[in-house]
């Protein structure tokens, strides 16, 4: 109704009239607001994005691709993919379990548990890394014992996984909880009365109802896991070819003034981020009904 009523020409000839809807801003104000918004987004978001690709291709495609196929670069890409491949299922399993616990049972301390799950959002990644170093570092009690038994955590892959899981901890649970609260428990209860086992209820009733929200959370988790810098910088030790992930390699290359190599790797990560973003947007459009609960909470 609103758009059609913005401008209504008079039917009688010779006297065109313009009426403004009661709930619209004057046209100049509207244009000014759109202008400010677009300028801000262009300067703050789109310009840095364009810079990444422009700098990567400063010496042409060949140079960019060549820098990505060097051994250290390949090792970094493999490491980042490996870390993501480990952290993501861990997080998904935790997210589903936590959401199930919180939405299917009533227990004391539930609000406190949710606060604890959200905690990593408000802890600086560097502090997260510090915590892991203090717990599992070679000169801590647990870390010393683990190193003695040939399982170093800090400055090794398990530490990076741990740091990554820490910073992405709430992502899946946070998306699932509002969706599962909104769906209630009735469907599961019906399945139980029909004699289905617990696992059967989960696979055939719950999972189909939450799969898009789960995928949504997994996408957010993936984007963050591939790009995590602060926490990984602290726990990885930044060993070239061993514990240097893609973001860490970007830092090292950039500090060595290897701009094309740094931005090529950045462009590769950015491309992955853009793919994630596109998938996320597609999910929001196509499964708006299931994801609506996320936005309401």
């Amino acid at each position: 109704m609103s758009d059609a009523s913005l401008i209504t020409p008079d039917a009688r000839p010779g006297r065109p009239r313009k009426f403004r809807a009661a709930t619209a801003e004057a046209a100049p104000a509207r244009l000014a607001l759109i202008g400010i918004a677009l300028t801000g987004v262009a300067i703050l978001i789109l310009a840095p994005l364009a810079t990444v690709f422009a700098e990567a291709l400063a010496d042409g495609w060949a140079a960019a691709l060549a820098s990505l196929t060097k051994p250290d670069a390949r090792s970094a890409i493999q490491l980042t993919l490996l870390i993501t491949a480990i952290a993501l299922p861990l997080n998904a399993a935790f997210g589903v379990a936590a959401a199930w616990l919180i939405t299917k049972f009533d227990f004391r301390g539930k609000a406190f548990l949710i606060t604890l799950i959200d905690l990593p959002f408000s802890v600086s990644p560097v502090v997260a890394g510090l915590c892991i170093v203090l717990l599992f570092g070679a000169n801590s009690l647990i870390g010393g014992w683990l190193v003695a038994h040939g399982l170093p955590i800090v400055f090794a892959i398990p530490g990076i996984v741990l740091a990554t899981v820490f910073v992405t901890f709430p992502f899946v649970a946070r998306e699932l909880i509002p969706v599962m609260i909104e769906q209630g428990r009735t469907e599961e209860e019906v399945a139980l009365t029909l004699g289905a086992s617990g696992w059967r209820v989960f696979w055939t009733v719950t999972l189909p109802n939450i799969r898009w929200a789960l995928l949504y959370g997994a996408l957010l988790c993936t984007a963050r896991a591939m790009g995590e810098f602060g926490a990984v910088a602290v726990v990885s030790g930044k060993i070239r070819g061993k514990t240097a992930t893609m973001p860490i390699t970007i830092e090292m290359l950039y500090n060595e003034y290897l701009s094309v190599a740094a931005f090529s790797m950045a462009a590769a990560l950015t491309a992955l981020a853009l793919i994630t973003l596109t998938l996320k947007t597609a999910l929001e459009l196509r499964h708006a009904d299931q994801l609506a609960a996320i936005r309401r909470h």
Partner: protein
Amino acid sequence: MDIHIDEIAKEFGKATALKPVTLSIPSGALVALLGPSGSGKTTLLRILGGLEFPTSGRVLFDGQDATGMSVQDRRAGFVFQSYALFRHMTVFDNIAYGLNARPRAKRPEKAEIARRVTKLLELIQLPDIGARYPSQLSGGQRQRVALARALAIEPRMLLLDEPFGALDAKVRKELRQGLRDIHDETGLTTVFVTHDQDEAMELADVVVVMSMGSIEQIGRPQDIRDRPATPFVRDFIAA
């Protein structure tokens, strides 16, 4: 204030909401726009209130062309179906809103605003709820607060969109009488929209039966019941 609707038509894109309709409402009348959903009754009410503008035709208030007059200048007390109370304001602030929104030169003194709000709260027989928030009120109380808020601006007419739609039967009966009393006391030209023929017949001086964007019949409740002008009116009244 009398209202004259002269050949008003309204299209939303390609959809026709109102075919040209003409209607005169004498000053001080209590008129019901009665019809099923999609009959154009709410569109007509919103055109009177300045919330929509007609594609063609004119609206005259006391003989003056008011077709293009902005909603702010119309001073139409409008009561919405959802009541549309400001939920972040107390009942007092809700009722005082229209007075506080006036430019400084025309704004009454604070004490004068308080006096008027108190008087309106008494008029709607809820003198003690000024400090409450809308979320703390019952449906019937909200409706009366919305009415008081509309009356606070000293409107030239009162327009109500399904004023009793969201209420249960008992409250509805009470509030019907309440609206009648307020109308009689203020003498305001009042137009309300309803799909409930009992409500229209019981409350209004004049009932306008609408269907598919046209006026089917205009008349006193008795006339419409006794002498339905079209098959549609006959079926609708019988239902």
